[in-house]
């Protein structure tokens, strides 16, 4: 038992030599207004409220909770005292959901989202790991549509890749309409900590791991990546249509489930 644990520790440390992952050490200074994101973290009911927005009618398909995959009998056979000689993982996981995001003036946007992750990973004990071990053969994308209640022609599309961070590429995406384009990407940002009037707290700045939204080369909004202490920052003088599209995308990024098990 001790030998196995020692071997595990050695393997764990050796793995650190090949340790790779996405990182964006870009640290920028912005003056966006912070808003707390309130809401339940229950997987079936995750309605949110933040700034002037609140989500409702959140629906998830049953298929989002199923994970079809190939059962590989070799995974359990090719093991010596729990140590795998060969381990292959091949599964597909999806998250399909829709919700309504309402504003204080009772107007709303309908959002439909579909995220898909296909995992193709292989681990071989006594041979050099191939590209699949580092997640290079994984497929990870998210698509969504945002439609305004009043202006059905004004439709926004969201496309994002690698949000589950299963390979070394950047976690980024785009919000596209007929005339406008907003990009978002995971990075570290210096942002205002709180928005409490007449108190010193409003002057404090903290470093946050966020999805930063860039419009015309300038950061105009951000939303927390981590589930705990969620926050949403937005530039107040931004075009209303853009604000709505960004808020809906921020809600998608907060509501979505991590598909990598």
């Amino acid at each position, binding site marked *: 038992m001790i030998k196995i*644990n020692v071997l*595990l520790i050695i*393997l*764990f*440390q050796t*793995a*650190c*030599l*090949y*340790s*790779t*992952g*996405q*990182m964006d*050490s870009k*640290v920028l*200074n912005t003056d966006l207004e912070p808003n707390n994101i309130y809401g339940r973290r229950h997987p079936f009911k995750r309605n949110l409220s933040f700034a002037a927005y609140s989500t409702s009618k959140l629906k998830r398909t049953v298929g989002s909770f199923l994970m079809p995959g190939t059962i590989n009998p070799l995974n359990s056979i090719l093991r010596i005292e*729990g*140590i*795998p000689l060969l*381990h292959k*993982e091949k599964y597909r996981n999806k998250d399909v959901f829709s919700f309504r995001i309402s504003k204080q003036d009772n107007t709303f946007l309908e959002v439909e989202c579909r995220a898909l992750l296909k995992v193709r*990973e292989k*681990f071989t004990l006594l041979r050099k*790991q191939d590209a699949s*071990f*580092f*997640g290079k053969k994984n497929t990870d994308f998210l698509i969504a549509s945002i439609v305004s209640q009043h202006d059905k022609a004004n439709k926004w599309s969201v496309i994002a890749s690698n949000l*589950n*961070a*299963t390979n070394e590429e950047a*976690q980024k995406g785009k919000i596209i309409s007929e005339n406008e384009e907003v990009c978002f990407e*995971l990075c*570290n940002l*210096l942002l205002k*900590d709180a928005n409490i009037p007449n108190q*010193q*707290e409003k*002057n*404090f*700045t*903290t*470093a*946050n*791991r966020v999805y930063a939204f860039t419009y015309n080369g300038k950061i105009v909004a951000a939303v927390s*990546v*981590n*589930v*705990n*202490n969620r926050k949403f920052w937005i530039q107040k003088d931004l075009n209303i249509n853009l604000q709505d599209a960004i808020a809906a995308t921020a809600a998608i990024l907060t509501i979505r489930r*991590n598909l*990598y098990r």
Partner: protein
Amino acid sequence: MIDCTKTLMLFTVIICSAACSTMRLQIAIPEKFREQAQMLPIKVAGVGQTRKPVKFGKFTTSRIKRGWNFKTGSSDRNTTVTSEERLLRAFNIQKTAMTTSQKHRFQFTIRDGNRIAQVYALEREVREGTQISRNSRWLSDIYQDKNMQYSFSAFIIPQALNQQEPWNFVMYSSFDWTQRKNLFEVNDIKEGGMLTRGSDTVIIKTVKINKTVSPKGIEHSLPFALPMAYEMRVENNVCAIIDPMGRILWLYRELDEDMKLAVAAVTSALLTRRIQNKLG
């Protein structure tokens, strides 16, 4: 028996006196800056735990008024899948993505005899990592950090009749352990920040030092450079150097008094912070 007790007492006295006479190493300051700056030894107690005032030169702070030191941790979304995690999955070892967050705020007043400024500060550190459960009573769970974001923000309000604009100070650092090439690589945590008031800007950055000086003036070389001091610059000119190891502030003599007070406030705030304190 008596001889044995005497020897033991003598040994204890020698150990205690040796411990008391430990030298506090200082960083080597370039001769040119040394001539133009004043050396202010800093009297500061503890490493961010105490409430005792900080004193250096003509600057004195009030007692440090500390708020709650919050540290929370819970399972969270996994924002980076590392090769270690892939390996652990092959071994069927259970793991959880964790985020720990620590926050500490404090405030104090600093005075230089004529001027007074009120300082409010907030420190925040967020660490993301993986907790590996090993289901054995002989082996405890392992926690490994993946990335860290640290920020230190301070607000300096001069208390004057002519209502001066306040100074805003921000310092930040971040590190991604998943980018390390090997386990023995030194964590090259880059720390930087700025102190601003309207058009006045002071850039602060960590300086790596590989030469130290003992109080007797003997230079020692370190095998590799370590981030041991802070350098403050106004338009590419060094205006102050903070040496937390030697507990010294080197302050440029020609600096105006308002700026000196702001630099002194930042020095006091940096040396009294709790989460990431580099005091030697």
